[in-house]
């Protein structure tokens, strides 16, 4: 019997369990900054580059980053993509309700690029090099989505 002629049961095997991660001291500081509508990064004493969001170690220099710096709220859209699909839990692709923009944003020449949503602009009009600014939720709570998106400055 060839493979094509065979049929198999296909039991669904979910892996639905919970990990409780601690986010650590640096992301905690980042989100504390959000409570004051500040974007914080950590500066490396070796190469003076700034990681956004902040983290403790610079991979290039293998040094501890202790200095926290506040970044400007306005920056340049360095690179972007317009999404026409969304990836759902389980890795399934679905058509997006409408096209949306994801951008890599440079807030400072020394800072790493921050990936975020770019709204308030027709996706077909988005250009690399555009100036964009942070848009916060009215009520900030020190959580991931306080910094809601970026829009043209």
């Amino acid at each position, binding site marked *: 019997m060839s493979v094509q002629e065979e049929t198999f049961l296909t039991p669904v095997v979910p892996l639905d369990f919970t990990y409780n991660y601690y986010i650590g001291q640096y992301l905690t500081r980042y989100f504390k900054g959000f409570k004051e509508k500040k974007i914080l990064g950590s500066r490396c004493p070796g190469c003076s580059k700034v990681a956004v*969001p902040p983290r403790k170690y610079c*991979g290039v220099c293998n040094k501890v980053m202790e200095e926290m710096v506040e970044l400007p709220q306005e920056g340049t859209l360095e690179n*972007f993509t317009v*999404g026409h699909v969304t990836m759902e839990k389980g890795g399934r692709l679905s058509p997006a309700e409408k096209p949306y923009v994801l951008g890599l944003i440079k807030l400072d020449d020394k800072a790493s690029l921050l990936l975020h949503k770019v709204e308030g602009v027709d996706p077909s009009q988005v250009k690399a090099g555009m100036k964009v600014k942070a848009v916060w939720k009215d009520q900030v709570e020190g959580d991931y989505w306080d910094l809601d998106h970026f829009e043209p400055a």
Partner: protein
Amino acid sequence: MDKKVAIVGFRMKSAPDLVTTRERLTFELTRGLFDDLGIEREDVDTTIFCTNDFLDGRTISNCFLEGPAGCYMRDESKVEMDALNGLMYACMRILSGQYRTAMVVSLALTGYQVSPYLHIEYQLSPIYDRQMRLLNELSAAALQARSYLTRYGYSEELLDAVAVQALSNAAANPYQARRIPGVSKEKVASSSPYYEPLKELHCYPPTDGGCVLLLASAERAKELTDKPVWVLGMGQSIETFYLGERDLFRSPSTVKAAKRAYELAGIKDPKAEVDLAEVSALFAHQEPLLAEALGLLEEGAAESSYQSGDTAVSGKMPINPSGGALGGHPVSATGLIRAAEAVRQLRGEAGENQVGKAEVAVVHGQDGPCAQQNAVVVLGV
């Protein structure tokens, strides 16, 4: 490395949906290889698995394959990365002098049974990326594609040209999963948009598949085959995990891996000395990007290289004459499949896709978002 370790045989298989089990695919491939070479499982001194726990839905996902792979009560180990890293591990085991043969086994059923995108999804940071849900394998690749096109001023048509060449080669290759007859630029350009500038046919297809390959010491290789393919050099390197800190338009880790591999192989001028490349480009833009990093194409000249046919099967630097990963990407096995495809070329057994002069081939494998980790192996006859 001067002809110390050879590839003496391989088996591989890919399809959109193989309607099979991991055990059965493993048995078919490994038993097939033993029969090809006239050996039994006792002739395999060590076995290296390259499977993905997450995609298999089981931890230490090699533990249920010892029976089907014939390594019950024998020496075995595992690399949870692209299997070209496993090939390098197997080489090192033979070079240690403790083993005369080493088998590499890699497979993934990421066509129908589980989504291939979970591989990168669950490599991303659980405490940041996976909370934000902005980054995934495809959006990351799209940012890399845009960065590459912008850097060199290439038009999006380059992506179509790369995809047409790869998919045309794949259509003529019976080992490939995605074989589209008469694929054209129009067909590629009109495929569904995913994340701009990437469309469906610029991206690898969800694929079931696997590959097994037997390596042997020089002495043992002569007993097992008349057509040994020698491992001449190898190298690997990894760059930072954080996309916002990478120059996505280039691959410095591939440059470094290639440098080490070429040094071991005694290759000084890859453009002149390499006859073909099998590159694990999961997305169209990655093929020229990685070929540049491997020193095979002039930086910034990708558009003319693809337009002039230099990279075609009949060109002066054929890239992915097999069709590459746009023809199939069983996650983890892809780098090993590239090695097996290079072996077909070097033995003159690549059929319609055979390149003219095939004496030295470069093989590349990758893992991580936007090819974070890269492995390079030089093969020759």
